[in-house]
């Protein structure tokens, strides 16, 4: 009995001794959303080789929940992660405040690496005052995905589709007549891409640099006119992205084209419409338009634990400046790299079975270099909603376009300087 007790004490003591170095082990927390969380987890073996004593805890939440949680964490400085993944739309909002570390300053000096990133992605993370608040990790070069078989049935070729926007709509009429398929999912998609093209340098999508709303400019008028033309000729399926009718439309060949980020080809292949493999092709957007659809960044919260910041920075460097990690994320999750030195990899030249053997990654690489960053504004989320509402009124109720845009302009003026 006594022996047993002594053994027990001995075990406890040795466990205690063993636990001492374990307790000294450092750890950092990375907050992310799908599929960035998977990319981070996949990088952990590489991280462990570099820092065997630093554990990385991955906190994963759904996209919107993640950003709400990050807003709360930044506002109260409680439960702040050491590294924060941010989607580009939210980065714009977070960049308005002072919650993120300026990575242009020492000890980070991110500008030294600027030339290694896709230019527009780096600019998206920069503020007019010269701060750089996040490091781009993946980007979403815009592309026009189309059903080759439906196009052929209508006697059309790719150039008919992406020559001009008017040509795109005219092609839609022929596709509808020959195959019954809609040109695109929703007339709103047409507006969304057109307001993104032809933005002058220094301008935002909805506001100029002095917070004056731009929604009555020809850019918006044309976007609304073409969206209305699409609706009037019944060329849109009137379904919203990610709805079940949307994926059903792809599966059944009811939707002939979709403008989106290059990553959509991966989603179509994996789960949206795997049965349509080989029928799709990718083209550049009509009229020489280049636009970005999404993108992910890593940032360090300003009020995060200072002792962990050097490690957090090293972790971000591993994720964003390491060719092998960037390519791994590209291959496993279709996360198009923001790091330019990956662009000579053979993976870009591989044919894509889903796109009928097309080497589409080369086109997307070209597009990535041509996209220009757009200045973000604090009220972009509100502006988007106002514009969508007015477009609905134009499409559903026949409201005159100039009146709709004037109403939007008035609403945005009221809120622009808040």
């Amino acid at each position, binding site marked *: 009995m006594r022996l047993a007790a002594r053994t027990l004490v001995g075990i406890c003591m040795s466990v205690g001794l063993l636990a001492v170095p374990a307790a000294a082990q450092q750890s950092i927390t990375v907050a992310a959303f799908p599929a960035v969380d998977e990319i981070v987890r996949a990088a952990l073996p590489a991280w462990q080789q570099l820092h065997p004593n630093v554990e990385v805890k991955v906190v994963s939440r759904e996209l919107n929940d993640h950003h709400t949680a990050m807003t709360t964490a930044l506002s109260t400085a409680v439960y702040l992660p050491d590294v924060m993944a941010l989607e580009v739309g939210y980065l714009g909002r977070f960049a308005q405040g002072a919650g993120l570390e300026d990575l242009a300053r020492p000890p980070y000096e991110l500008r030294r690496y600027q030339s290694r990133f896709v230019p527009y992605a780096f600019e998206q993370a920069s503020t007019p005052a010269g701060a750089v608040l996040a490091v781009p990790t993946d980007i979403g070069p815009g592309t026009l995905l189309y059903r080759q078989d439906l196009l052929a049935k209508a006697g059309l070729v790719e150039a008919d589709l992406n020559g001009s926007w008017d040509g795109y709509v005219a092609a839609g009429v022929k596709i509808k007549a020959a195959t019954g398929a809609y040109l695109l999912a929703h007339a709103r998609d047409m507006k969304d891409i057109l307001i993104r093209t032809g933005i002058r340098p220094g301008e935002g999508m909805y506001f100029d640099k002095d917070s004056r709303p731009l929604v009555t400019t020809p850019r918006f008028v044309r976007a609304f006119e073409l969206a209305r033309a699409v609706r009037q000729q019944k060329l849109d399926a009137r379904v919203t992205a990610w709805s079940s009718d949307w994926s059903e439309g792809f599966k059944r060949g009811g939707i002939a084209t979709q403008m989106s980020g290059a990553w959509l080809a991966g989603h179509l292949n994996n789960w949206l419409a795997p049965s349509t493999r080989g029928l799709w092709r990718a083209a550049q957007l009509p009229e020489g338009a280049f636009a970005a659809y999404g993108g992910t960044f890593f940032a360090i919260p300003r009020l995060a634990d200072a002792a962990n910041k050097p490690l957090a920075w090293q972790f971000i460097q591993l994720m964003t400046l390491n060719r092998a990690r960037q390519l791994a994320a590209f291959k496993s999750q279709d996360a198009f790299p923001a790091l330019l030195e990956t662009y000579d990899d053979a993976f870009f030249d591989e044919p894509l079975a889903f796109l009928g053997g097309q080497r589409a990654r080369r086109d997307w690489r070209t597009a990535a270099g041509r996209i220009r960053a757009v200045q973000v504004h604090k009220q972009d989320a509100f502006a988007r909603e106002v514009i969508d509402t007015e477009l609905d009124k134009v499409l559903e109720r026949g409201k005159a376009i100039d009146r709709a845009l004037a109403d939007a302009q008035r609403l945005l003026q009221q809120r622009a300087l*808040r």
Partner: protein
Amino acid sequence: MKPLPLPRLSPRWAPYALLAPFLLLFLVFGLFPLAFSLYLSFQSWEPTSGLAAMHYVGLDNFAFALRDEWFWKSLANTGWLALASGLPQHLVAIPLASFLHLGFKRWRNAVVGAYFLPYITSSVAIAILFSSLFSTDYGLINLLLALLRELPLLGALLPAQAVDWLNDPDALKPAISMIVFWRYVGFNVVLYLAALQTIPPDLYEAATMDGAGRLQQFFHITLPSIRPMIFFGVTLSVIGGLQLFEEPFILTGGKGGSDQAGMTAAVYLYRNAFDFNDFGAASAMSWLLFLVVALLTWLTNRAFRPRAR
């Protein structure tokens, strides 16, 4: 060995100790948020910059809220929904309770329970259920309308096409009102049934002997007797209706629907804070909404208080 005596609470401190759990929770989850939102309504705050980033702006947020078209739009939506879902609740619940009171003896509790069930069902489950019921092409409600359309006279009154309940701004408000009505009518039935049971049966017996019919009894005995309960029920409906949030929020994916037709004041102030990052304006709007609720509650009180004879 004698067990140790439990520490005794002196009668002097007992009330404080017993009240402490409630007071503590109330302070943390009740009073503090109230006070903080009042404080925030006078501040401009970029939340991602941290708590230190607030600065005092006086009445700016209130001035903005009063000029904001969407705030007025959301108040109008709230009023519409409160009226369209609240009024029928009582107009149906009172006769229904009266009918259950007189017509059911043995099965009354089971029937009341069935009516009460929606009130205790999770809103998320309700939203999922109704999203599928209201589906344009496959929903049961449109299917029913299509069947009724076949009938000779009624058919002419019904819409000629399938109604896009959740995306058409004109159809969204009636859809939300239907859910709110369905959800809370049972609660009101329970209230009125409780009130009906307190009316002495002799009153009805005397009235019957005097030759009063069922309808006369209802208007001259039942209604006046349950007046205090009507006041209570209507007050709850006014407050609940003006704070309507869950049903429209879940049904419209947190956005308020096409043309913001389902964006109530509560949904709008939530969106102002969490979607548009404007906590100051959101707090100001919540206090303005409080003033509206207080005013309407006072008016309800005026309408239902006992009159001097």
